[in-house]
Every structure is written in C-alpha cells, then in structure tokens.
C-alpha cells in the first residue's frame, strides 16, 4: 500500500462574538436587516404598482379587444416582470412570500400563485400538441365541472371563471397544474411558442426572434373569447391582491406586520425574529436562490436537456429578462442598493477579500449582457440553448458561475458572523433534515 505523507496547514479563522446580539445592537435593529427590509418595501411596492397597471391594461384590452390594446397589455406584462423578477431574491428565506411555517404564513404565502412554473398550459387553453392536433378539455373550453387530472385531483365548477375558482384549480392534482400567476397571463396573451414534437423544427411559430403568436380572434370571434377575458381579469386580480398582501407584510409604520417582526419591533414581541436567525435565513435563502433556483432549475434544466418548456417565460420569450432581473434582485441585497439608491449597510461590506466574488459577478454581468443583446438582435433564449448554438456553452458557463456565487454566500455569511449548516443551505421548500 502506497501511503502519501503530507503536511496540511490549515488556517482557521475563528470569530468570537463576545457580546450577545441584543447587547451589540441594543434597541436598534441590525443595520443589515434594516437595509434588507427597506429594499423589500420599495421593491414589492414597485411590483404591486406595475401589477396594477397590468390589471388596468388587461381590463382595457378585454373591454375592447384590439391589436393595439393587446400589445399594450403585453407591454404591461413585460414591464411588471421587471420589478417582480427582482423580488424573487426574497424567496427561500422563510419570509412571507413562501414561508413554510410560522404566523406570517397568514399573508397567504403567495409565491405558488404568483409565479408557479413550469405550467402545463394545455390545462388552461388549447395548444397544438406533438401530433399537430389542437387540444381540448381545458379550463377555457369547459363550461361546467372541470377535472384538472394528475395526482388526486379535485373537480371544480368552472362555469364562471373567478379568482376563487382559479385558486381552487392552482396546483390541484400536481405542481404542473398551474392556473394562476404571471405565466398564466403570459400564455393567455402570447399563446404557445413551442413545437412540442421537436423544438428544433420550430414549426408552431417560426423564427429565432418570434415568440408565441396568439391571434386577436381568440378574444373577438372565437367561441370561447368571453371565457378568456374572464380568465385574464380573474388572474390579474389575484396577482394584485397577492402583491397587496406582500406590500402590507413589508409596509412601514405597522407595528404588527412582518417587517416589524424582522426588525425586532413587532408589538407582539413573541413574533419578533432573533437577529441571527433572520440573517441565517437571508444568507441561506440567497445562496439557495442563486444556485438551486436560478442556476439549476431555471437555467441548467433548460440548457442541458435542452428544453424550451423549461425556459422561464417560454410563451413571450422573455427568459433573458427573468434571468437578468433575478440576478439584479440578488445584487440589490448583496450590495444594499435598489434602483441606484443606497439603502445602507450591505451584506458584502463585512467581507474582507471580495476578489473572487466580485470577479464572478463581473463575469456573470458580461454573460447576461451578451445574452440580452443576442435576444434582441439575433435569437431568443430558446434558440441560444440549442445544442449546436455557440451561445449554449456561454449559458452553461453562466450557470456554473451562478452556482459558484451561491457557494460564496457561505463566506459572505461567515464574514457577518453567521455559520450556515446543512439545515440552511438546502432548499427549505423541499427538504427538512
């Protein structure tokens, strides 16, 4: 047996915080949490305002369906995604958007209603299937009891499509049975882009810069036009009400809400979150979001399968902006800024050697810019991920760098006196040790 004798020198930096957290900050909230919470307030407020505009534009369109108003509605949807995409950095941190447990689940944990994806669009409306046939038996064309199918589904009366009907249908029978949220609206505005038989052939819509091509007739002469209008208005109402709930959770001046609890100021003191627990959840949430959600689920699955179905906004071909804004949301919190406004102490400030992390961020920015440029001038994301496209390799590298940034969050946390252990750096939604 060959045995290799080596000397290992390891430098262990042990940070000992002598004082307790409460002694350190006294009655003042932790400045990291203040910046984080204030960005949440601003970002969710913007997302709500943009969603309200979207709702108005959808109302205008459904009241009087014209091409111009349809384009206005699409523009409003694209704009709404810009602010909402950034809020996704608040996910996976046991906050009100997707907490699994705790009193703040009373805000409705709306993530699954707002942004559930990927969705089985064929449950909502017709598609052209892999055999070239138009599908039926969906929510739009069923005027009565609808069975969504899947695992233990519950049949729902869809005679009138209302917000409560859509809530009852959402993920009823399985995760793919998505009936609500931005992507349901996206499908109802753009329609199918993908060729389910072979996305390389692209025979449903044609062209590298062409998204879904739903016709205006779906809202005018088609037999189910009125039901589509009902659907659009119902789902838009849900998006707005769910974001109103988030804004109330993060509103200033409310001593009983989640923001007050995060900052240790809730009048019901039992609701206040220990500062270290809050920071641990935030650091781990950011790490999991950037690595497991953005890099793995939203990019890796799409480019490695490869699969158009698994690009985030597959009907509108807006995936490049989803990725851009998700990463922007992460940077907002890391650097303590939002819309060029400095919100104070940043998570990265305490990190002594930022070189590796900053180099990764610069490199990711470059790749995201390239992806955006190409999406505007030569080919959408669904063409960039094709196996024979040179850009596919760049997107894989982008994914790898995002993964590395996710791992860096362990060091960022450590710089702030927070050790992350296994319970925190797995996807909290999917596992519990």
């Amino acid at each position: 047996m060959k045995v290799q004798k080596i000397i290992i020198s390891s430098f262990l930096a042990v940070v000992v915080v002598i004082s307790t957290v409460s002694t350190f900050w006294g009655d003042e909230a932790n400045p990291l949490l203040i910046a984080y919470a204030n960005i949440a307030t601003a970002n969710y407020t913007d997302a709500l305002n943009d969603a309200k505009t979207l709702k108005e534009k959808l109302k205008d369109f459904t009241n009087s369906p014209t091409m111009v108003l349809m384009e206005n509605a699409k523009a409003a949807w694209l704009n709404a995604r810009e602010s909402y995409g950034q809020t996704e950095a608040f996910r996976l941190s046991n906050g009100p958007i997707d907490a699994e447990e705790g009193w703040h689940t009373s805000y409705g944990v709306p993530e699954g209603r707002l942004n559930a994806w990927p969705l089985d669009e064929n449950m909502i409306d017709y598609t052209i299937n892999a055999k070239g046939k138009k599908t039926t038996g969906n929510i739009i064309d069923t005027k009565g009891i609808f069975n969504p199918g899947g695992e233990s589904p519950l049949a729902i009366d869809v005679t009138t499509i209302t917000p409560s009907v859509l809530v009852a249908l959402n993920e009823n029978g399985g995760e793919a049975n998505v009936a609500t949220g931005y992507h349901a609206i996206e499908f109802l505005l753009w329609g199918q882009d993908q060729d389910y038989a072979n996305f390389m052939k692209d025979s449903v819509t044609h062209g590298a810069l062409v998204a879904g091509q739903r016709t205006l007739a779906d809202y005018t002469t088609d037999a189910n036009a009125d039901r589509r209008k009902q659907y659009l208005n119902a789902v838009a109402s849900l998006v707005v009400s769910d974001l109103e709930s988030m804004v109330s959770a993060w509103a200033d001046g409310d001593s009983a809400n989640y923001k007050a609890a995060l900052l240790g100021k809730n009048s019901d003191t039992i609701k206040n979150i220990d500062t270290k627990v809050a920071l641990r959840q935030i650091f781990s949430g950011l790490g999991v979001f950037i690595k497991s959600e953005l890099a793995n689920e939203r990019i890796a699955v799409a480019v490695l399968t490869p699969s158009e179905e698994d690009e985030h906004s597959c009907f509108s071909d807006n995936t490049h902006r989803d990725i851009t804004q998700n990463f922007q949301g992460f940077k907002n919190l890391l650097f303590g800024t939002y819309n060029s406004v400095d919100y104070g102490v940043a998570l990265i400030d305490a990190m002594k050697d930022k070189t590796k992390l900053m180099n990764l961020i610069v490199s990711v920015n470059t790749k995201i810019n390239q992806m955006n440029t190409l999406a505007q001038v030569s080919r959408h994301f669904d063409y960039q991920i094709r196996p024979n496209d040179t850009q596919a390799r760049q997107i894989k590298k982008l994914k790898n760098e995002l993964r590395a940034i996710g791992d860096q969050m362990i060091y960022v946390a450590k710089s702030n006196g927070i050790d992350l252990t296994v319970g925190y750096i797995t996807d909290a939604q999917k596992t519990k040790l």
Partner: protein
Amino acid sequence: MRYLMAIVFLVVSIGVNAVGEKFFNQVIIANVVSAITNTELLIDSINQANSTSAKMQFGNLVSSWKKVETTYLLGDLNEDYLDTPRYIDIFHNNNEDIKSQLDLIINSDDALSSAMYKHSHKTINALEYILFTKNLPHQRVKNMALMITKSIKSYLSEILNGYKAHQSKFFESEQYASAILLNTLVGGTYKLKEWRVGDVAGLSKKFKNRPNNHRAEYAISGNSMNAIKAILATQAQVINSPDYQDFGDIARQFKASKEINQAISALNDSIVNASSMSEFDFINNKGKRLYQSTNRLMKSYYISLMDRLGFVSKVLDADGD
C-alpha cells in the same frame, strides 16, 4: 452599545497520510472502466436483439454507473466536466415527460440523428424505457437503444479521459481532494435519502405521507434497489476499505475517529437495511428504516465530519422538478 469582537487565527499543521493514488485508481478509475465495459456488453446484447440479455446488462450498467456517480468529483477538478453526468442520467434533473417524447420518436419517420436531438433522449433513463417497455427486435427501437448506449459509453470515456488528464489536481492538494470528496459524499447521500428513498417512501417533506413506488429511480426496470446498493457499496469503498488509505483513515488522522465511526456505523446499518429490501419495500417499515439510517449517514457526514475537519460545505443542489 458595546461591541467586542476578537479574531483568533489558529495555524494548525497536521501530518496526515492522504487519500491518494491507490484510492484514485482502485475506486474512481476502476469504477469508470467497469461502467464502460458494461456499456460494451450491453451494446453486444442489443446488436443481437437479445432482450433478456440486454435487460440483465442494463442492470449491470445501472450498478456500475451509480458507482461512478457516487464519487463523481471531476467537475471539481475541471469545470468543463461539471455537467457530464447529466448527459448520462436525468433523475431529478428534468421536468419533461421523456416517455411520450420517445414514443413519438419511435413512431415518426424522422432520422434518429435529428429526432433524438435532446441530451435527455440519450440517457440511461431513456434507455430503461426503451429496453423495458418496447420490442427490442424492432429495428427502430434497436437503433435507438444502440444510439443511447453508445452515447453513454462516449460520455463515460470522456469522464475516464478527464480523470486521467486532471488527476494531478487531485493529488497535488490532498486537503482539497479530501474536501471535494466529502462534499461529493454529502451531496450524494442527501440525494440518496431524500430522492431515492424519502420521496418514494412518503417520508420526504415534498411527498410527506404520500408514498408511491412509481417515484423510485428505476421503477420501470426494477433496478432501484440495485442502484441504492451500488451507491452504498461505493461509499464503503470510500470510507471503510482495508485495501488502501481511504477517507476514513484520513478522518482518524484528523482526530475525527468518533465522527467517522458514526458514519461507518450508519453506512453499515444502511447496507444491512438495503440488503433485505425489494423494489416494493420502500413504502413499508423497511423503507422507513433505510430512510432513517441514510439520514443518520447524511448527518454524520455533514454536521459532524464537515465541522470536525474544518471543511467548507457547499450549498446543496435542489432538484429540477
């Protein structure tokens, strides 16, 4: 407001015998070579359109591939190889229904080279569906099975060449080698207990109280326990082998005897629990016992060993479903 922070730097110099060349060759390289051999035997069976033999060889390939996957750290040695396993295996890394896609391909007239353009069409998961639900003597089915198996062989060969090309990085820093090895064990054990056992047994958070044997990794061919046994056997190669300096020996030299002994105990329990299980036992007490022992194994790696050895852990990958 008083604040006092003391920073203490400890320089620890520890002389250890590292996981080295013998482990690398006898476990990592040998397992890849074995998997390549199994693809060749499977190709022979497919060429003969011998369905019985092909199914048996598929089982052998599952076993040898899982051994490669269990210690797969080539992506840490060179980032270009990070995704190679996903071109072989898409368990929990895919949202699509590849079965319906494969059915379409079988029934279409398109040339296979263009019809099977997706990586997911050429994985071991696709091969299982083709070999165990389709008629192998059918020429198009046979051609698809051949294309898939050759693709798997090609990626395994790429892995073998990659290890040989980048082995120096594994040898030059044994501390780094040990750290990536432990992180690989952690990631693999998490997937073992959560995806391969917990999701099926209805014990994972995602499928709490909803057991379903159809969620097993190789539910179609009945090779799920075969895969799990291969994973556990490979972990024994890593932490409890009498034949070479293994990770268990390293841990002891780092004064982590208690922690590694706990891991070995949990691993041995898992091996015993798995040995008595059939494909249909996930949803009964046997499945529960395996979940519990693999959970102990996970914790002993992650919480005890990682901490004791001072290695920095990574954010664990969530699944793609």
